[in-house]
């Protein structure tokens, strides 16, 4: 989703989908949120039935009631909450470092045409390097300390922010730019009142993408390297044969992912409440 600003056109699913424009009112059926709940319920039922009737191997794929029970047991252990804390700590720290670095470097690099062109090839080369490629060296240098997790998280999420900021900075309205110059705004004031507001929607998109990627890499690092956290808990559960618990942890990571996504969408809406893309939902 990096790149084409078209992707970040306003429209967040449901709102635009239900646009109450001048169209003839169609017969309204069941509300959307109910349908969504029905979908989730169907998934739970399916996971309950399929292992029981033998479509999925019961031994390795417990029905949802067992997963649910395992989850209920899990949330009563302090080990679980420590793991959630560890995962979130790595995620938040890594994301914070990557965001600050991405925004600052993005504004510096994007500020002049020369630096942009000079760094373009290097960025294009470094960005697609999968961050899991860093696992071996992270292990060698830091072992299972939090630094190895941070290295992966920061590397992966940094590019998401940087690329978006670079797009955002280039989006500055030339007229506004000239006006600011003509009125003698200094360098800092231009960044503050021109660059930053222009780039903010892009920054927010970048942050949202980075937050999702950071969570993936935090859990991956725990799983593969063995830093304390949900990933390690999952690896332990799987290797000790506690399969229902393994699935329960997968469900927890999914819920965390959804929460992170929702939270960042909310922050995006809140911080951009002044921006035209968020103000109206009028579809022209």
């Amino acid at each position, binding site marked *: *989703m990096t*790149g*084409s600003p*078209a*992707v970040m056109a306003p429209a967040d*699913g449901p709102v635009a*989908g239900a646009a109450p424009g001048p169209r003839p009112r169609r017969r309204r*059926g069941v509300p*959307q949120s109910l*349908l*969504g709940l*029905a*979908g*989730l319920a*169907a*998934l739970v039922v399916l996971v309950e039935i399929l292992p029981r009737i033998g479509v999925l*191997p019961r031994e*390795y*794929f417990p029905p949802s009631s067992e997963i649910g029970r395992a989850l209920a047991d899990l949330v009563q252990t302090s080990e679980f909450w420590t793991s959630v804390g560890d995962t979130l700590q790595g995620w938040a720290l890594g994301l914070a470092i990557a965001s600050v670095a991405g925004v600052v470097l993005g504004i510096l690099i994007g500020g002049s045409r020369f630096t942009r*062109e*000079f*760094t*373009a*090839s*290097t960025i*294009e080369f*470094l960005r*697609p*390097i*999968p*961050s*899991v*490629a*860093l*696992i*071996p*060296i992270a292990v*060698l240098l830091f072992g299972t300390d939090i630094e190895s997790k941070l290295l992966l998280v920061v590397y992966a999420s940094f590019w998401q922010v940087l690329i978006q900021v670079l797009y955002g900075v280039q989006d500055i309205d030339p007229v506004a730019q000239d006006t600011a110059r003509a009125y003698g705004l200094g360098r800092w004031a231009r960044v503050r009142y021109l660059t930053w507001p222009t780039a903010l929607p892009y920054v927010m998109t970048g942050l949202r993408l980075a937050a*999702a990627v950071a969570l*993936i890499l935090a*859990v*991956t690092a725990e*799983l*593969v390297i063995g830093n304390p956290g949900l*990933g390690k808990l*999952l*690896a332990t559960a*799987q290797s000790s044969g506690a*399969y229902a618990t393994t*699935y329960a*942890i*997968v469900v927890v*990571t*999914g*819920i*965390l*992912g*959804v929460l*992170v*996504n929702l939270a960042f969408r909310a922050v995006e809406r809140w911080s951009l409440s002044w921006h035209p893309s968020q103000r109206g939902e009028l579809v022209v």
Partner: protein
Amino acid sequence: MSIVRRLGLTFGLPIILLAAWWFASANSTDFFFPPLSEILTALKDEWFGPRLLADVVPSVLRLLAGYAVAVVVAVTLGVVIGTSRTVRATLEPVLEFFRAIPPPVLVPIFLLLFGIGDGMKIIVIAFGCMWPILLNTVEGVRAVDSVLSDTARTYRITGTARLRTLVLPAASPQIYAGLRQGLSVAIILMVISELFAASNGLGFAVVQAQRSFAIAETWAGMLMLGLLGFLLAMLFKLVENRQLAWYHGLRRAQRSS
């Protein structure tokens, strides 16, 4: 822009960085940071030598197989789901949930379900990179211009013709955005799936080198992974630029007007 200037801009920084690495590490005795010359030798002798066929090729084949499965399944499902409002509303939370699961956590589970063979790795890759493609396709199909859509209906363009001439082209910018995300997930999963149970593959070999403290080889393996990621991204860009030339042109025109 003159050619010299252009070359300078493109290769200037990479050359500076490489030179800095080369000289900074030239006489390095630090165990973890061997001289770049040693790393490059290892890259040439090992990774472009016997390991190319033994490890790199199997990895890439699994990656491509998994990715291909994901593209076919996700785009097909995405078109079906995106076309109907009710289906979309019903499935959206489920799909969002599956997308939110960090794909690598599926590896231990798929290990249980599908064993440790190539099949498991391909399934992991396909399953993991399918969600961004699927959700972007749904979004793209949903957002087909309503005037175009009504026009097609008026002219009774339905079925395959509608799909080929209206829905897929209209959704393709979004679909490509999903495909690009999916590709990077696929590369990650290619590596991760080989870390757990494998007898060959790029990820397997790199970790093997790391565990036996063959440092130069480990670094070389990381460079190889980086090169692979870069090449695939370039290839993808090439295809995208060809397929979406009309779209980029359209956007440029809209911007300048």
